[in-house]
């Protein structure tokens, strides 16, 4: 397989709509528009293009256009599998092509814009892609049948070939391009019965990986072209600060330094290679006007958030009457807190641009290509049709590449450079100028009657990423992501109130981070459930199970994980098992972490067991890979992840102080996939969410220390405290 970066020449027609719009955007649904799929052969290029996703040329080459970007989650293989399944194409012979920016053709039905995120890809595109494949297949069969003067029903298709069943006559798809392009597409083509799937559900080999083991794959940071210069930058270390003065006397003397560019808020050095640019930047003496955020520290941010969290929020969900219950039974309250997190994609932020007076070319890997074009056009002062985005595979996204700040910055710099320039962020700039996962505080209060929860009030306080990033999703003061997995908690509690307090942290920009809102809510709720279970002397799994009567899929994964993790079997001293259960992204997951904690507070994760029901699975091996990787991503944050501020500056700078889990710390991860015929659920983010609370609960079981904030603080464990 090859991935081509050339712009698609698909006919500009709408693909059939009707997607499943679910997940953290459940509360709103932007219309996708009506479908009008007819096809045309472009006489100039001899291609059959029945819709925006499929192109077949006369040589028989099938090109599949990828509406979602590949950043490791396996979506190129997933999308290709779904299309090829209904098209009956030979998956080993297809060419994959990045979709160009085109919100009309390629908008994610869950967002209404062209974006890859929120574990929506399979959920949102499942039906449109199947219809696209099936429609093209029906046309090809009809074209063959017409030529043979037989009925379409007497023919079948497999591996890119139409067969007349009775006579055994065959035509390759490539031979049908001309007659097929003259036919009108049928409406309402039937989709395959899942029992007839030949590709979906199989652990097919990934299509993007062969070039990833031999150095051939080209990420955005690898873009090369004649005349390319290299640049790196320093942004004001204090958020919102400006350049006051630069002394470039020493920098310009460094061999290979070609140009120094001072903009309002940053300085870039352009050189013959990154080394010259880096040395030039180090040699610059920059004086910053640090502005109003110069004295902000983490303590200010937490004081601000804690105070705001005490006020009433907007009610996102209300069942029964929580207020009426406030003096009934026994009370139990707790608060939980989550830190700022950087994304730390292994491919540091970068963007290559070539800006001229009437054109702007951008080489980048982005999760949001149409917005990338729009921001590049604005920064270059050109119309969008003058901008070309050359999309690349992403060296990690995790939500960071849902933002376009790096593209705007690169175009601003590139507008001052004659010829193409590659701007690469140092790791320090990448970490200190991220758009961070917000800090959150969750206040929970409950009333208990015996061992039953009769009322629960949950208030989440934190930044609204949705309000900035997708304003239509922010309705009536409620951020649907910030309350995801809380407003729709699976626990059957007769009196429930979920509130949201929007509180934007001073100075620090906030954005999506893999696992998004559920990371916070599932941590708080699942930690709290363990504390309640202990208060009423019940086993944590039995306690949860009793409240999950309305969600049998969750009960099932909980039962399965209990069995597979040897729940209840004796453990050595200072070893504990902790559980979490989550209904996130239309996927049901139960997780058990087994951890050992020494008296100094060091935590050693012995093993992790998961039961996962993500509905119908496109590629089980990819699902398992996502669960393994997501677990490690979540546990990394639980053990180490925290961005702190002092004097308006992020204190962490590279992997020595913003640490990542390494191979020697990774436990055995046992994954049990539940066979299911339900609609597909999300997995790339769902898999991040459950590890941190299960680990926290394992520490609670091992030591009795009820940690209430992340990351896990070994000092608290050693001192047996919930807070410092």
């Amino acid at each position, binding site marked *: 397989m090859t991935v081509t970066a050339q712009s698609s020449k698909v006919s500009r027609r709408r693909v059939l709509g009707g997607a499943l719009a679910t997940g953290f955007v459940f509360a709103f649904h932007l219309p996708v528009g009506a479908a009008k799929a007819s096809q045309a052969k472009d006489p100039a290029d001899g291609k059959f293009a029945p819709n925006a996703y499929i192109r077949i040329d006369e040589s028989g080459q099938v090109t599949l256009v990828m509406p979602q970007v590949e950043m490791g*989650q396996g979506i190129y293989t997933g999308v290709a599998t779904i299309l090829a399944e209904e098209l009956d194409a030979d998956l080993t012979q297809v060419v994959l092509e990045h979709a160009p920016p085109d919100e009309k053709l390629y908008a994610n039905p869950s967002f209404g814009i062209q974006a890859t995120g929120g574990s929506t890809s399979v959920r949102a595109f499942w039906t449109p892609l199947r219809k696209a494949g099936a429609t093209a297949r029906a046309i090809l069969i009809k074209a063959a049948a017409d030529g043979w003067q037989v009925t379409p029903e007497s023919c079948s298709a497999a591996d890119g070939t139409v067969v007349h069943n009775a006579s055994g006559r065959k035509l390759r798809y490539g031979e049908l391009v001309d007659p097929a392009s003259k036919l009108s597409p049928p409406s309402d083509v039937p989709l395959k019965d899942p029992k007839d799937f030949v590709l979906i559900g199989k652990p097919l080999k990934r299509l993007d990986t062969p070039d990833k083991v031999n*150095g051939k794959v080209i990420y955005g940071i690898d873009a090369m072209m004649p005349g390319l210069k290299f640049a790196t930058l320093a942004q004001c270390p204090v958020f919102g600060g400006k350049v006051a003065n630069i002394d470039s006397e020493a920098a310009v003397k460094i061999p290979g330094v070609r140009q120094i560019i001072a903009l309002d808020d940053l300085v870039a050095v352009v050189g013959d290679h990154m080394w010259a640019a880096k040395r030039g930047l180090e040699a610059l003496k920059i004086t910053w006007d640090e502005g109003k955020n110069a004295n902000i520290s983490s303590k200010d941010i937490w004081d601000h958030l804690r105070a705001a969290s005490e006020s009433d929020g907007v009610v996102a969900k209300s069942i029964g009457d929580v207020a009426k219950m406030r003096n009934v039974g026994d009370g139990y309250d707790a608060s939980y807190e989550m830190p700022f997190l950087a994304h730390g994609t292994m491919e*540091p932020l970068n963007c290559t641009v070539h800006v001229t007076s009437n054109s702007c070319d951008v080489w980048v890997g982005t999760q949001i290509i149409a917005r990338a074009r729009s921001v590049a056009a604005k920064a270059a002062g050109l119309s969008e049709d003058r901008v070309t985005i050359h999309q690349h595979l992403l060296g*990690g996204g995790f939500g960071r590449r849902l933002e376009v700040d790096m593209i705007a910055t690169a175009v601003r710099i590139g507008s001052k450079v004659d010829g193409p320039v590659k701007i690469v962020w140092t790791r320090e700039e990448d970490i200190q100028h991220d758009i961070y996962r917000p800090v959150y505080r969750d206040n929970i209060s409950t009333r208990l009657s015996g061992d039953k929860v009769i009322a629960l009030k949950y208030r989440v306080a934190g930044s609204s990423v949705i309000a900035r990033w997708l304003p239509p999703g922010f309705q009536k003061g409620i951020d649907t992501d910030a309350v995801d997995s809380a407003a729709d908690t699976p626990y059957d509690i007769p009196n429930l109130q979920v509130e949201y307090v929007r509180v934007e942290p001073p100075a620090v920009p906030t954005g999506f981070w893999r696992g998004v809102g559920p990371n916070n809510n599932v941590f708080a709720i699942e930690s709290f459930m363990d504390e309640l279970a202990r208060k009423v002397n019940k086993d944590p799994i039995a306690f949860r199970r009793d409240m999950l009567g309305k969600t049998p899929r969750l009960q099932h994964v909980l039962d399965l994980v209990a069995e597979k993790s040897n729940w209840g079997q004796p453990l050595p001293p200072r070893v504990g098992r902790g559980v979490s259960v989550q209904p996130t992204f239309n996927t049901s997951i139960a997780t058990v972490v087994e951890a050992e904690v020494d008296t100094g507070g060091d935590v050693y994760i012995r093993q992790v067991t998961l039961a996962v029901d993500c509905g119908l699975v496109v590629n089980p091996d990819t699902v398992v890979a996502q669960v393994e990787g997501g677990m490690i991503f979540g546990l990394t944050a639980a053990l180490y992840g925290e961005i702190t501020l002092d004097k308006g500056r992020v204190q962490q700078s590279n992997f020595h102080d913003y640490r990542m889990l390494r*191979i*020697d710390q*990774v436990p055995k991860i046992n994954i049990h996939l539940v066979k299911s015929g339900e609609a597909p659920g999300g997995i790339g983010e769902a898999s991040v969410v459950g590890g941190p609370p299960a680990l926290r609960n394992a520490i609670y079981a091992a030591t009795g220390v009820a940690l209430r904030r992340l990351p896990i603080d070994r000092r608290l464990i050693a001192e047996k405290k919930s807070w410092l």
Partner: protein
Amino acid sequence: MATTLNINGQEVSFDAPPEMPLLWVLRDVLGLTGTKFGCGMAQCGACTVHIDGKPVRSCVLPVGNLQRRAITTIEGIGATPAGASVQKAWLDLEVVQCGYCQSGQIMSAAALLASTPDPDDSDIDAAMAGNICRCGTYVRIRAAIKQAASAQKS
């Protein structure tokens, strides 16, 4: 000043200051972009290459001392028996996700297998703990190293 290096079996000459790290020579001067920039301070292993068969972090390795040394990068590692078996095991077990760190992972794993044909878990930990994978492919990296080791034996 012209420097001549032996990279993947070929003599390559270029102009660069002797203190310039090998990583930027490979990527920006020679266009060998398979070797990746991740941290710039030998913390993540994305830039791992071999010098005379030993894994090193090219982001902190000045080119000035490398004349007459054999440099192998991800583009050339498939020509070695250990490199080829590692690449095959990586694909067989579908180790890769985003793939950005995998050049470095494969270079570290190939060096391990070349020196330790039958590594145990602690050998793997010691050889691979310098390579960060943000996608969390570590479980499969360990399994693939073991598979590559047993393929080499047979």
